[in-house]
């Protein structure tokens, strides 16, 4: 356990908390209408919104997790990085344009255009909340463990601090504060990763070849870290993960919500371009950081735990590297940025969860058209989500939650994406078809994950999985399309036949 307190880390983090709370205080005076609460009044620039969207993907899991994966297994980690970027063109080419024209606050707005509003809203809200819950649990548990490691703070306190700050940002500052927290953090994280990669490359005279040579020489797997390995062992799971990542982004409610925060469809397109640009730069730097950690951290006994492996666990690779190339000051800075990253991501998730409850369920599905009441409900929903997130974070503290982000992506790709895509592109989609297809995708994605390797074997401790592929998106996404199409086409015919037979 790395419980040494690092004054730079604590100072930097307090500065971040102070600045973001000041912004929240400023934003609070403006978050008086639904439009400013949900979408920052639609006044963000493409660059600012792009940074915020990219920030949603540059989570602590992406920064520490992907660099750790690269340090452990080599190139396979980079495939994850590429997967996180390949979702952007899909969003832009297939979803963003029409979503921006048809919707106003949430993606369910676009769904209910041609379909019967109430059932579709209820389905979209439930499916959004499930996706958000899995994503949020993974972030909260990760946050508690990480902050415990980085700051020597007790897990319970760490979870409580994250929960309280995120509720403050969202309740008082709405989308304006949530976005600025995300923009500041994304800038800090990109800056931190850039400093870390430049200092790492400087150790090798800016010769990437020399870095690779050194990494191959010191890594226990040597040459094997240069090529993909996992996908060769199980190509179907590898491709299925590719499907979940490529199409899951297009079904994540907290990402889709960001297309309503800019003034027009041009700025919406520009935001996705900037998001993909920042994410691509970020993962290229993470790649250098991961291999840098192989070359500089793995051979140094100072960073190794007595029982083998890295001190503080595998996720500490990037943090150890920051100390190796930049001393305690850089390590403190990177630790504080990792904390800020978690806060920004959970705030965005909480806001989209609150909007699903207050806008989709309360205001639209149950027809309360009072703006002040809807706003009050969204603030209460934020508070409830905050409390639930803290409780879930405590409940799952000792659980292996690594599968949860994957599950969130699988559900987003199998339930939200197919019906959103069909609703915006196919006039023949019926309400029954949308609900049946979405439900088929949702239930099969959850069910097959439960009986698959990551829960049935790793969590429940069974010897062999019943369904061998993880994630299941390769099968469940087409299933959702098929069921939505089948029910839309056949149900009306069967009903007509029924009427004829009866008469």
């Amino acid at each position, binding site marked *: 356990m790395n419980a040494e307190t690092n004054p730079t880390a604590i100072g930097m983090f307090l500065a971040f908390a102070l600045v973001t709370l000041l912004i929240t205080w400023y934003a609070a005076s403006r978050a008086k209408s639904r439009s400013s609460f949900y979408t920052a009044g639609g006044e963000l620039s493409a660059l600012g919104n792009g940074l915020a969207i990219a920030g949603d993907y540059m989570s602590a899991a992406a920064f520490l997790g992907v660099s750790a994966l690269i340090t452990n297994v080599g190139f396979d980690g980079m495939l994850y990085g*590429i997967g996180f970027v390949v979702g952007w063109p899909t969003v832009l080419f297939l979803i963003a344009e*029409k979503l921006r024209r048809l919707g106003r606050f949430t993606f369910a707005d676009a769904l209910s255009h041609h379909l019967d509003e109430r059932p579709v809203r209820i389905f979209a809200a439930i499916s959004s909340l499930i996706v958000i819950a899995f994503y949020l649990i993974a972030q909260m548990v990760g946050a508690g463990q990480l902050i415990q490691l980085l700051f020597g703070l007790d897990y319970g306190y760490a979870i409580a601090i994250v929960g309280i700050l995120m509720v403050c940002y969202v309740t008082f500052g709405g989308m304006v504060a949530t976005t600025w927290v995300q923009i500041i953090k994304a800038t800090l994280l990109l800056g931190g990763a850039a400093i870390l990669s430049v200092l790492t490359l400087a150790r090798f005279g800016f010769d990437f070849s020399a870095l690779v*040579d050194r990494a191959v020489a010191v890594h226990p797997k040597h040459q094997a870290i240069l090529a993909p390995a996992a996908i*060769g062992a199980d*190509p179907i799971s590898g491709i299925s993960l*590719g499907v979940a990542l490529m199409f899951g982004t297009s079904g994540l409610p907290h990402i889709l919500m960001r297309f309503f925060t800019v003034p027009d469809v041009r700025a919406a397109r520009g935001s996705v371009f900037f998001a993909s640009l920042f994410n691509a730069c970020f993962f290229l730097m993470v790649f250098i950081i991961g291999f840098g950690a192989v070359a500089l951290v793995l051979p140094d006994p100072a960073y190794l735990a007595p029982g083998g492996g890295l001190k503080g666990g595998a996720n500490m690779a990037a943090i150890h590297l920051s100390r190796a190339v930049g001393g305690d000051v850089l390590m403190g800075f990177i630790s504080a940025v990792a904390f800020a990253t978690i806060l920004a991501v959970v705030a965005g998730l909480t806001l989209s969860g609150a909007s699903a409850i207050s806008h989709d369920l309360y205001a639209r599905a149950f027809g309360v058209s009072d703006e002040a009441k809807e706003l009050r409900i969204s603030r209460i929903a934020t508070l409830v989500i905050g409390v639930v997130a803290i409780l879930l974070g405590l409940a799952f503290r000792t659980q292996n939650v690594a599968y949860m982000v994957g599950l969130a992506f699988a559900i987003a790709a199998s339930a939200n994406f197919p019906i959103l895509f069909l609703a915006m592109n196919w006039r023949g989609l019926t309400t029954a078809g949308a609900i049946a297809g979405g439900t088929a995708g949702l239930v099969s994605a959850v069910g097959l994950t439960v009986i698959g390797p990551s829960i049935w074997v790793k969590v429940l401790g069974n010897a062999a999985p019943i369904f061998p592929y993880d994630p299941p998106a390769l099968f469940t996404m087409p299933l959702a399309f098929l069921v939505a199409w089948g029910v839309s086409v056949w149900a009306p015919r069967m009903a007509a036949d029924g009427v004829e037979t009866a008469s």
Partner: protein
Amino acid sequence: MRSPTPISAAPFRQRTRLGACLCVLVALAYYGFLMAGAFAPQALARPAIGSVPWSFLLGALLLVFIVAMTGLYTLLANAAETKAGDKRP
């Protein structure tokens, strides 16, 4: 206050087609790379520039390609919109 805009027909259909084409290109590049990783990992591990292997080089190029495609779509769609004088949200 914004409100949903009615879809303007022809330029919109063109953009949908452009989006579909670029989406297929990105999918081909991405799944092609994954397939190469699954069935020819040894070829990817061979050095391309100095000691830097093909896997790194192609992975980095794939990222550049993805960004270039989103940039291309944004440029073309925004230019078409300017030309059509479609300034609506």
